[in-house]
């Protein structure tokens, strides 16, 4: 079995960690910083990642992509306010997913992230001396479904099987909890480069139970930089409307000033001819001035904290410990605000830049079977619902529900002979769908019938990654209904497939590997469908002998899954389909009989 690595894919910096005998460790080549700046620079003849990309950023500001995480799982319309501060190009043509442009080629956000992930992967491989394929990747707790899916896509594009998407604040709590599995109620305040999260957990007997989480996926250190650079540009008295490069230089200068003012009371900003202008800019900035500028932004973290407390059903005084995570919590103003809110000094005993990656490695160790005494029970950060009459949200799964979780709903048709039922799924807390985030439209194929006769049972399942899957069955025919998914944001499966193809050199081995992957995915679906059919119909409809045959065929598929042979897997899938065929037939019969009986009953009633 191969190792599972833990990755913190951050807005500003990314890190990789692995579990060793004596605990989790961040991995870096000898003498190098474990923090890999999340920066990708497209130069004439090569692609630079990390520190090298960042170091030359000022000179190559148009072809250097940074803070790509803010664009993951988002559409072009979502990022309008941010374009002003971005020196690189964004493709306005693509609406459902953000594509950035560098040297004439467009890259999706997951592709850029994949370049960073590949760098981290190769760091570990050099360190261990062998290949790694499986990873745990962290995301902000408040990430929605599309953003999580985009992160998984990035992993896939980097040649990693993403075993788990873990929330950053909860990952941090795992790192803290290694030495004390009974910490009581803990608040994790996580302010990074681009995102903010607050999570309230109860840690008891090794169970890390998230009570509530809240946050803002567009609130972080970058916003401080933008506000500061706007201030500096105003002080310079210059109009930079169309000079993205000059704005980029100001943002870089603002970020440097912010860092210095974390340690010192005063700093000086010097900019000579930014973006080809004739400007010579020199300005002193005091910490108090900076704090005045960033206070309104930092204060935006307070409302999510209060709401998380309410949702968790605890008061600030019941919080035993407040933990700070993320580079932006180094800012003294932020620490003071957190202390005031919770009425106690927050701490960051573990390095706030590293703690999330360390926690990811702990989670990886749990998944690998290395630890049985710790378990994370996380929640879904956003309420899930569907569009109902009048554009009103029909709630399916409320926010802060422990995952995995599932909910079944039965739908019917409004028109005669409808062949599909269309369900629009959204995430968010507002009453009207227009104010929430559209996830996808699901179209379920059904057999034609008079209006109101169809009964489609839809199961909404949110897995331990916080990612939604939807399955449906036609209660009249007993068949699983076909599902056509149209995601509202992010890449479609076909797009990811194509990018995968583009990224490989089409070697025989790659094609082989892809065929195995596809066969495996199908095998899992067939096994899942069989088990669920047994669950829903098996009690009365399946005898001992038939059950044994089905279980045997499932074992056959599982045996094949252990090997790298897609033909064998397909053979076993066919064999399983064969033994379940009679059951499927009888399921249909039964349901038909039932439907007929019901019909007779309803006819009798209407007489």
């Amino acid at each position, binding site marked *: *079995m191969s190792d599972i690595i833990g990755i913190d894919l951050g807005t500003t910096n990314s890190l990789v960690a692995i579990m060793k005998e004596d605990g989790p460790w961040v991995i870096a080549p000898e003498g190098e910083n474990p923090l890999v700046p999340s920066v990708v620079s497209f130069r004439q003849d090569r692609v630079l990642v990390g520190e090298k990309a960042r170091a030359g950023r000022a000179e190559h500001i148009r072809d250097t992509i940074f803070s790509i995480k803010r664009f993951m799982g988002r559409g072009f319309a979502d990022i309008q306010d941010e374009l002003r501060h971005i020196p690189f190009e964004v493709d306005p043509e693509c609406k459902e997913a953000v594509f950035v442009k560098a040297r004439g080629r467009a890259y999706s956000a997951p592709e850029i992230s994949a370049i960073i992930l590949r760098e981290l992967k190769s760091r570990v491989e050099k360190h261990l001396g062998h290949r790694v394929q499986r990873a745990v990747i962290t995301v902000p707790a408040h990430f929605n479904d599309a953003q999580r899916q985009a992160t998984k896509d990035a992993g896939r594009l980097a040649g990693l099987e993403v*075993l*788990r998407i873990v929330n950053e604040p909860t990952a941090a709590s795992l790192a803290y909890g290694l030495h004390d599995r009974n910490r009581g109620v803990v608040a994790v305040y996580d302010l990074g480069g681009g995102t903010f999260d607050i999570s309230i957990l109860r840690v*008891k*007997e090794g*169970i890390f139970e998230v009570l509530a989480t809240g946050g803002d996926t567009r609130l972080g250190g970058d916003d401080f930089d933008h506000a500061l650079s706007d201030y500096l540009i105003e002080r310079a008295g210059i109009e930079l409307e169309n000079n993205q490069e000059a704005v980029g230089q100001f943002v870089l200068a603002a970020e440097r000033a912010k860092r210095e003012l974390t340690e010192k009371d005063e700093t000086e900003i010097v900019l000579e001819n930014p973006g080809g202008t004739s400007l010579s800019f020199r300005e002193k900035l005091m910490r108090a001035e900076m704090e005045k500028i960033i206070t309104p932004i930092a204060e935006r973290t307070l*409302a999510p904290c209060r*709401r998380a407390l309410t949702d968790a059903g605890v008061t600030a005084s019941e919080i035993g410990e407040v933990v700070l995570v993320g580079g932006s919590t180094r800012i003294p103003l932020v620490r003071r605000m957190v202390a005031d809110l919770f009425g106690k000094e927050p701490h960051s005993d573990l390095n706030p830049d590293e703690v999330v990656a360390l926690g990811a490695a702990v*989670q990886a160790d*749990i*998944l*690998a*079977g290395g630890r*049985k005494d710790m*378990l*994370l*029970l996380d929640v879904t950060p956003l309420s899930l619902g569907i569009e109902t009459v009048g554009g009103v949200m029909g709630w399916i799964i409320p926010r802060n*529900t*422990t*995952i*995995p*979780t*599932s*909910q*079944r709903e039965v739908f019917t048709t409004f028109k005669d002979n409808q062949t599909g039922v269309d369900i629009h799924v959204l995430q968010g807390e507002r009453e009207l769908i227009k104010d929430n985030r559209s996830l996808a439209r699901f179209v379920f194929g059904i057999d034609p019938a008079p209006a109101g006769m169809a009964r489609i049972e839809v199961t909404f*399942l*949110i*897995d*331990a990654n916080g990612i939604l899957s939807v399955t449906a069955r036609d209660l009249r025919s007993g068949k699983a209904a076909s599902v056509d998914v149209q995601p509202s944001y992010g890449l479609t499966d076909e797009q990811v497939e194509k990018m995968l193809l583009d990224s490989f050199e089409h070697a025989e081995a790659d094609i082989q590997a892809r065929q195995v992957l596809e066969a495996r995915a199908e*095998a*899992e679906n067939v*096994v*899942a469908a069989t*088990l*669920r059919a*047994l*669950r*829903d119909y*098996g*009690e009365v409809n399946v005898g001992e002998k038939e059950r044994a045959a089905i279980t045997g065929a*499932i*074992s056959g*598929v*599982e045996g094949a*899954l252990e090997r790298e042979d897609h033909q064998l897997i397909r053979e076993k899938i066919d064999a399983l389909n064969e033994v379940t065929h009679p059951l499927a037939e009888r399921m249909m019969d039964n349901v038909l009989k039932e439907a007929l009986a019901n019909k007779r009953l309803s006819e009798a009633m209407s007489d």
Partner: protein
Amino acid sequence: MNQTRTKNRDTFSVFDENGEIQLISSTVDHFAFFSLPRKMKIDEGGLEAKYYDYSRRLHPDFFTNAPASKRILSLDASARLNSAYKTLKDPIQRAVYLVELESGKLEENDSRPPVDLLEEIFEAQEAAAEYKCCEDDAEEAKNLRANLEAAKECFIAQRAGQRAALADLGARWDKAIDAGEDPPAEVIDKLRSVLGLRNYIDNILRSVNQALEEA
């Protein structure tokens, strides 16, 4: 009905004799899932302990390297465990679930709010709507805020009254179950009415809180 109650409780187990996760049919209710009697009052500490115990044995984290079928069983069973626990740990959700289990889904016409309550609700709704769009007039905003705060207090008090009624009805329900009888129809009807009213109060409280928060 008594028969199914006994049958589920006595025969269902999440794990088979080898400790492997079983298929959990949707006919298994949340009480049967946790092997609990269908009562309003339950041992909440015991429920939490069982939830933790099951979580340690069912969670997908511990099945990463298991065969596909076991991973699927673990995922489905964990989803089921979390729903069951969420419903049963909260006394109100538990009461709603139990009443619906015995007497069908709660419908809107189970409870018609008394006229004076309806009036209070309408007034609060109006104040909430106005408060959201009166940013320009500070005096007006102050007044509305005071109104909303007062309405909030009133609804919170109403809720406390309902809680007392629920406690009383719950005790009568449990007494019947302990005696091996069905819960009295009168108790079921009253519970349906109180729980239905609760929805009105919860909804209006949510709107009022939202209005107060957003401003």
